[in-house]
């Protein structure tokens, strides 16, 4: 589904990604792990075509089509949804407005109507007239996920979704992620919260100073104490 091959990306002269290769298949949750500043968010931004960083080399294909050189909205229109780091909700838009930003035609094609999103996240239904900045941390994350679903994605890129959430909200988020996998979504999950990532992911890649240094099924990684200690500090 998503295939990243030998990706090099840089901020100006600072090389951040050095030949990253990885893939995410349909119905799989793939965790991308690594300490702060290793290039996880840079990878997500590179896949989405957001600049900076500038992709210098390599390819990103989705369902066999090259994404490199496309603009972010063209990539999103290929049914790739982004749940960005820090949520990045629109402070002046209400919950409902967040979910109806796309044109009528695009919304009509989407299997995620506003009503269905409120079924998935009843709390958002109760807060439909609230603005982005009036929501709690957990509600914000729900809205960020719901907003990405309005694009009718087949692949979800989730960047640090558990960041700043109370444990009970992290569990809620994990249940949502697992539900989405059951529906057949492919999910690339960038996490610093190792335990949350291990709880839901099928396989994991570890990114260290811009390169993939380890790739393993999560079950294997869970028991591989030396690798976890060496690259993730646990």
């Amino acid at each position, binding site marked *: 589904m998503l295939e990243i091959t030998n990706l090099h990306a840089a901020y100006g002269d600072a090389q951040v990604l050095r030949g990253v290769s990885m893939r995410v298949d349909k119905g799989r949750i793939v965790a991308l792990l690594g300490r702060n500043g290793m290039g996880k968010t840079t990878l997500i931004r590179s896949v*989405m075509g*957001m600049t900076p960083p500038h992709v210098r080399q390599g390819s990103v294909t989705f369902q066999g089509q090259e994404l490199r050189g496309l*603009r*972010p*909205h063209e990539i*999103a*229109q290929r049914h790739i949804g*982004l749940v*960005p780091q820090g949520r*990045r909700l*629109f*402070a*002046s*838009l209400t919950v409902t*407005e967040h979910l*109806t*930003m*796309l*044109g009528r035609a*695009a919304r009509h094609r989407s299997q995620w109507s506003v009503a269905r999103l409120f079924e998935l996240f009843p709390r958002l239904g109760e807060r439909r007239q609230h603005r*982005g900045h009036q929501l709690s941390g957990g509600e914000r994350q729900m809205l960020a996920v719901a*907003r990405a679903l*309005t*694009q009718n994605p087949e692949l979800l890129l989730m960047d640090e979704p558990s960041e700043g959430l109370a444990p009970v909200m992290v569990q809620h988020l994990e249940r949502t992620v697992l539900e989405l996998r059951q529906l057949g979504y492919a999910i690339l999950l960038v996490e610093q919260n190792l335990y949350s990532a291990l709880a839901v992911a099928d396989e994991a890649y570890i990114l260290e100073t811009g390169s993939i240094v380890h790739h393993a099924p999560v079950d294997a990684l869970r028991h591989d104490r030396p690798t976890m200690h060496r690259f993730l500090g646990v």
Partner: protein
Amino acid sequence: MSMTVFQAMNGATFAALLFIVASGFTLIFGLMRIVNLAHGALYLMGGYFGLVVAHRTDSFTLALAAAALAVAAIGFGTYTLLLRFVGGNVLRQVLLTLGLALVLDDLALVIWGGDAFTVPIPEALRGPVQVGSLVYPKYRLFLLLFSVAVFIGLALLLRHTRLGALIRAGVDDAEMVDAMGIDIQRVFVYTFMLGAALAGIGGVLGGAFLTLYPTADSDILVFSLAVVIIGGRGSLAGTAIGSLFVGMLATFGQVWFPELAYFVIFGPMALLLAFRPLGLFGRTA
């Protein structure tokens, strides 16, 4: 007493003109982070276009429509042919729009010369009207009502249409709008055209009572900048209050402290910014 009321009305009607021009400026500044220094020149071009159409057709309404369309077209060209290619680079944007302002100014000087012109207004708007004990020019009251209509129209656009929601979302986080599958460049073009059209309409309305002359654009640009800085970029309510603030200070300043007219506006503005650097209604991105 009646003199003070008269000056207050003058301040309010000047504020009305400033609001129409500065609302376009703040839309562009707020959404695209472009300080469009050609906004005053767009105002001037609108005024001259309106002047030509008003003379040819005897219709003030047609003059307004033609100026809005023509200046929106200049806005379209400016954005798609020039500004799009310097996205994100503030210095280049500032220099580019300043250069464009100089070109448009000189073009106006070549075409219309250095004389001052007044856009003719329809018979129905000429002369005074008596409100209680106050006798006041009808046209200026019309301008006040027109600006209220523009405020309501823009508020409806921003609050109740999808384009409005996209503009508000873009003011908050344009990159994220793009990452949702919405072509933010298209939203930018529409907004730039709308902002330019408002400058053009302002040029016709202002040209009917402030007169049009080759450097009229820099005066209106400086006032618009002050309005947006005081009100906070991208905020309609902020622009309305900023306009009233600047309009009143400019009018009363000229009457009470003519030698300090500019200081009366920019002194309080500096003071306000010391406490609220983002303006009255400004928010961090």
